[in-house]
Structure formats: C-alpha cells, structure tokens
C-alpha cells in the first residue's frame, strides 16, 4: 500500500543533450578537397548510420544544446507538483523524458505506477473516425485497456457533452468539441501518475471550470501529477509544490508561492538601447533613462495588474537651446500588436534661462491599478512639438509584463482584450 510518505516520481541527475543542426554535408570547397574528403566522409556517414547520436561525432561537428542539466527532484505520492519556467527552459523536455517519449542522455528517473501523459489534447485522434471510435482509439493510445474505456465510456461522453455527435466523424466537429472530447478521454484515465502539459489553455469558460474541477479531483484522489503551466493562477491554486527550471537547470523547489515569486523576479530588466535615445532635435538632446517602476520608484519588469505602476522618463535638453516646447506621447501596444491605448503629457515650455538652470527634465506617467490586462506591453514613445511636429519616434523603447495571481469568478485563463479596466457593475431587478 502506498502512503503519502512514499515517493511517486524520483528524478535523479537527469540531463538531455540535443544536437543542433545535423552534420553539414556538401560544404563548399574545391572539387579536389571534396574528393579528398570523400572516403573519410563515407566512413563517417557509415558510422553515423549505425550510431546516429554518438558523442564523438557531435563534439567534432555539431553544436550541442543541453535542454536539461543535472535535474533532480522528487514528488511525493498524492502530490500535484507544478513545473514553472520560461519558454525553452526545458519544461517540455522534462515531461517528454518522464513520459518515456525520449530517453535522457544521462541520469535516471523512477516512477511509482502507471503513467499517463497528456502533452496535447486529443492524442491519437483521427479526423476520419467518429467520436465513438476516437474515444476508444485515444483511450487505448493513452494507456487504458479496451475494457477500461468501455466501462467509462458513458462518463466520457457525458463529460464532453457530445452525445448527439457520437457517430459523426471528428473532422466535422468544431475545434471546441474536439478539445472537449480529447480532454474528457484524458480526464478519465486511471493511471497513478499524470503528466500534464498546459491543457488549461483551451476550451471555453464553463469547460475550463470542469477541467479544473477534474484536476482538483485528481489532486484529492491521492494520485500524483506533474503539471506544467504558464498560468501562475492555476499553478498556485492546484499544486502543493513546484519546481523552477531555468535554462535546463532546476534552480528552485518549494511551495508554489515561493517558486512563482522567484520565477517572476527572474525576468530580465528591459533596457533602452543607446542608439534609440538620441534625439538632437527641437532642443532635446537625448533620452537618458526610461523605466517601468512601481510607485516607490523601484525598477521592475513584471507588475501585478492590481498595483499601479509608473513609467519614468528622463530627458536631457540641449543646454544652448533658445527655448523648447514639446510634449511626450506614449503608445502602449499589447503583445498581439494591438495598440491598447495612447497617453500624452501636458505641453512643457521652457525658456533659455530655465533650460540653462535645469537641462534635465523628468516625466512620470502613472498607470492606475486595475486597468491593464495580463500580458506583455511595449511602449512606443513620440516627442512632439507644440504644433504636433514629430521630433522623434522610438518604436520599442520599453517592454514590461503584467500578471495576475488571483482567480476571478472562477476563471483561470486569459481575459480577452488588451485592457482590463475595473468596471463597476450594478444590477437592479
């Protein structure tokens, strides 16, 4: 009998190496050189043929990339462990290794029971087959027996809510229906260990609620799960522990709160490139700094959408300018490229005497809390004359990210739109 003290997943010094770009064949060179190399290449290729990834070949010709390096951790029986990290940190590679899809280059891992890996929704689906046929096919592909699928068949159909279309080929389903059916099959797996990659990013609100409910059932039923997500809200509410991967290394293990905080803090501070700063027009010399800060003036790269934030800008004026008159306009672009909003400063007019006394001016633009949506914003800045003549345009002056750590009305996913103002609602009925 397994108890909570038992280990369900034990990862022991696992590393994974990939070779970037296979060996380069047909390098340019004089014909005589190519001919001279031919026998060696033939021998080399023959060797490759039987030992495609042998160490020597990689070191001599290929570029090597370590997707995972010396990763060790344990997950206790019945624990849901979140895997957090940026894109390319090795999260997916880790899941692939633990699902036995690919082998580690070195190290070993132990699994305490049957593993079901949900790395995509609808694994094994075939578009030409009906919903009924696909439930069986996908279930067996994911590791259920035929008898298990048949026993839970009605539950799966119920959960997906597709009973009317059971005998329709899946190719005629809407993408939402396919996702529901795919998740439903996966949700009824009876394995002891679940390995889940970002399945929450799909489906509509009500279905997402069902999925999360199902996942917390998993957490409460004593089964173990490893859960990769970029969704900090979901990690926080579903997981009991978490690990942080950075560039293939495990840099932290702890409670979800600790790990999420470390993950958010790890985002590098954006900088303004020096070439973008020089204005030299309209009496303005250069932009010295441009930062996104909290209200205390601390530079940050990530902001909670519940806190106000400030954009702080410092401009140097040309000390010999006669007089200046300008304003600053900022365009906030959301990560999908939409212009979210624009904001303009009041006009600043300074005489030659004032400029000589204060050649540097500082602008602060406060963005109120509960106005931005979760995501990345990019600021484009324009410096305009009083007559709206453009002195300078700086397309990618600054980037920052916003995040949300609270679930709102049971919704864990992304909110639509480029803004999320805190609108006041009332109802009268």
């Amino acid at each position, binding site marked *: 009998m*397994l108890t909570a*003290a*038992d*280990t369900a997943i*034990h990862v022991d010094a696992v590393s994974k190496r*990939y070779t970037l770009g296979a060996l380069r064949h047909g390098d340019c060179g004089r014909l005589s050189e190519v001919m001279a190399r031919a026998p060696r290449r033939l021998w080399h290729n023959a060797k490759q043929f*039987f030992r*495609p*990834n042998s160490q020597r070949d990689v070191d001599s010709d290929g570029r090597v990339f370590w997707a995972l390096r010396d990763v060790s951790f344990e997950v206790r029986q019945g624990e849901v462990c979140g895997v957090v990290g940026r894109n390319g940190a090795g999260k997916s590679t880790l899941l*692939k290794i633990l*699902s*036995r*899809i*690919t*082998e*580690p*280059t*070195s*190290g*070993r*891992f*132990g*699994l*305490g*029971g049957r*593993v079901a*890996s949900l*790395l*995509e929704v609808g*694994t*094994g689906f*075939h578009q*030409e*087959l009906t919903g009924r*046929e696909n439930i*069986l*096919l996908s279930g*067996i*592909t*994911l*590791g259920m*027996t*035929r008898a298990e699928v048949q026993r839970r068949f009605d539950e799966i159909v119920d959960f997906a809510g597709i009973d009317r279309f059971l005998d329709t*080929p899946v190719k005629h389903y809407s993408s939402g229906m396919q996702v529901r059916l795919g998740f439903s099959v996966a949700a009824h797996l009876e394995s002891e260990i679940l390995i889940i990659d970002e399945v929450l990013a799909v489906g509509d609100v009500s279905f997402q609620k069902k999925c999360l409910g199902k996942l917390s059932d998993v957490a409460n039923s004593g089964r173990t799960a490893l859960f990769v997500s970029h969704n900090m809200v979901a990690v926080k509410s579903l997981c009991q522990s978490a690990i942080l991967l950075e560039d293939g290394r495990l840099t932290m293990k702890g409670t979800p709160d600790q790990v999420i905080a470390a993950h958010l803090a790890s985002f590098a501070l954006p900088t303004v490139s020096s070439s973008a700063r020089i204005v030299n027009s309209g009496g303005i010399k250069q932009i010295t700094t441009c930062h996104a800060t909290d209200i205390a003036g601390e530079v940050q790269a990530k902001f909670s959408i519940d806190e106000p934030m400030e954009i702080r800008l410092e401009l140097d004026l040309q000390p010999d300018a006669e007089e200046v008159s300008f304003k600053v306009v900022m365009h906030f672009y959301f990560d999908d490229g939409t212009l979210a909003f624009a904001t303009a400063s009041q006009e600043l007019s300074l005489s030659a005497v004032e400029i000589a006394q204060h050649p540097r001016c500082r602008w602060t633009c406060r963005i109120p809390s509960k106005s931005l949506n979760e995501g990345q914003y990019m600021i484009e800045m324009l410096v305009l004359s009083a007559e709206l003549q453009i002195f300078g345009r700086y397309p990618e002056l600054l980037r920052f990210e916003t995040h949300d750590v609270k679930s709102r009305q049971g919704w864990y996913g992304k909110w639509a739109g480029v803004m999320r103002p805190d609108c006041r609602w009332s109802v009268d009925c």
Partner: protein
Amino acid sequence: MPANASDSDTRARANLRYFQASNGKGLIDLRELWLFRELVWAFGLRDLKVRYRQTVVGIAWAVVQPLCTVLVFGMLIQWLGGRASDGSTPYVVTALCGLVPWQFFAAAITQSTQSVSINSGLLKKVYFPRIVLPLSSFIPASVDFLIALCILVIVMLSNGILPSWKLVFIPLLALLTVMSAMTFALWLSALNAIYRDVQFAVPFALQLGMIVSPVVYESQAVVPTDWQSLYFLNPLAIVIQLYRCALLDAALPSGLQILISACSMTVVFFLGMLYFRRMERHFADRS
C-alpha cells in the same frame, strides 16, 4: 543523521521502477509488446477503417486489384505467345496463386515503411514500444490477404480444381509470408524514420521485385534452367513457389534453396530487429 535520512529515502523509493538511457542493444521486448497488444489492434483497425472511408466499393478493392492484375497480365502473356505457365492449370489460377501473397507482401511493406514517419506526431506525444507501428500496419494488408485467399479458392473451385491435402500448410505459409514482410518492415520503417528517401525507393523496388519473383508466371515455364539456382536465391521466389506447391501441387524448390533462403532471412530478420531497437530511441527526436 544523514544515514537514517538516506535509509528512509530508500524505503520511500522502494516501489519505483527506474528508467535510464538504454544502450539500444537487444531484441524486441516481447513481454512489453504483449502489454500493448490492444494498441497494435487499435492502430490496425484505425488504418483499416480510414482506408475505406469515403470510398464507394470499400473493401471490394481487395478483390478488384488481384483480379484486374490477372486480367491484364493474362492478355499480355497471350499476346506475347503464352508461355507463362506449364498449361496444366488455367492461367488465372496460377497467377492468382502468386498474386495473392505478393500483394500482401507489397501492401504490408509499403504501409509499414511509412508507419513510423506518418505517426511521428504521435511518437512525440505518447510512449508505446515503437515496434507497435510496423506491426499494426500489417493488419489492413492481412485482412485484404484473407479476402483475396477466399477469392482464390472460389476461382479454383469454379475452374474445377480441388485443393489437395497440402492446403493445411497455408496457415504456416501465411506466417512465413508475414515474417518475410516483417524482415523488410523492420529495416525500412526504421530507415524511413530518418532517411525519407526510403519511401520513394520502396515502390520502385517492389515493381522490380514483382518481375524477378514468380508472381504472374511460373518459374519452371519462364526461367531458363541455368538461371534457376540464382533465381531462387530470392527468398520471395521461394515463398511464392511454396504457395503453388500447397495449392496446385507444383514442384517443391530444392532443399538447399529453401535452406539458403531460410538462413539468410533469419539472419536479416534478427539484424533488422537489432537495428530497429537501436534507432527507435531517436524516433521522437529525429523523425
């Protein structure tokens, strides 16, 4: 107390099954394959269903193909002077005897060659022993084979030929055909996962193979005696000849010829297994 801590760790990990980088050596793990037998069948059934979806005649294609081939070759050989068989049995029966196993062989090899590359998306998302893919790709071809075999018996009976008692060897021969096809499938599917040239070469090689095997003719009637020993180094020639022995009482190839074929095929089969095992570790990363 570190000693105690590691003790309790060991106890907590007692239930774990460990995995690490394999050396890629060894034959197919039959015990594991047995655990995945339902998957072999599920994939096979999928391919079978998908193949005849949106077709009009459906499974009748399994009948149409050999019959049309016999018709065309029958006419061709008659125009050329008609020396394709010894004439003791009608040409349609002789030719079908060769075509039924050959078409199984050709279909099984064509489909299994692409089995790994076609399913590469699946390979990257879920674990199963990779040998499941070439194995399951044999199922649609086997169904066609069984149907065609029934047609063959019907054609024999309608020509007034009763199969001899040697008919009992047919299941054994079918197994032999599957094993010879598997010999090629192991190599070709693993190679095609990494070198896609293979899937272009295979149909071409199969066309040549049909000519150098006694498919639409009888070897005794066509191949000069001096060439017979060389001709029967082709293991498929032996297999097809054995079908004619079992169904039509044709002459058995010599014991030495059978022995050479059996030995060479066995060696290539096991080498193919080793090669597949060696390469399957890289399917998910490279295919």
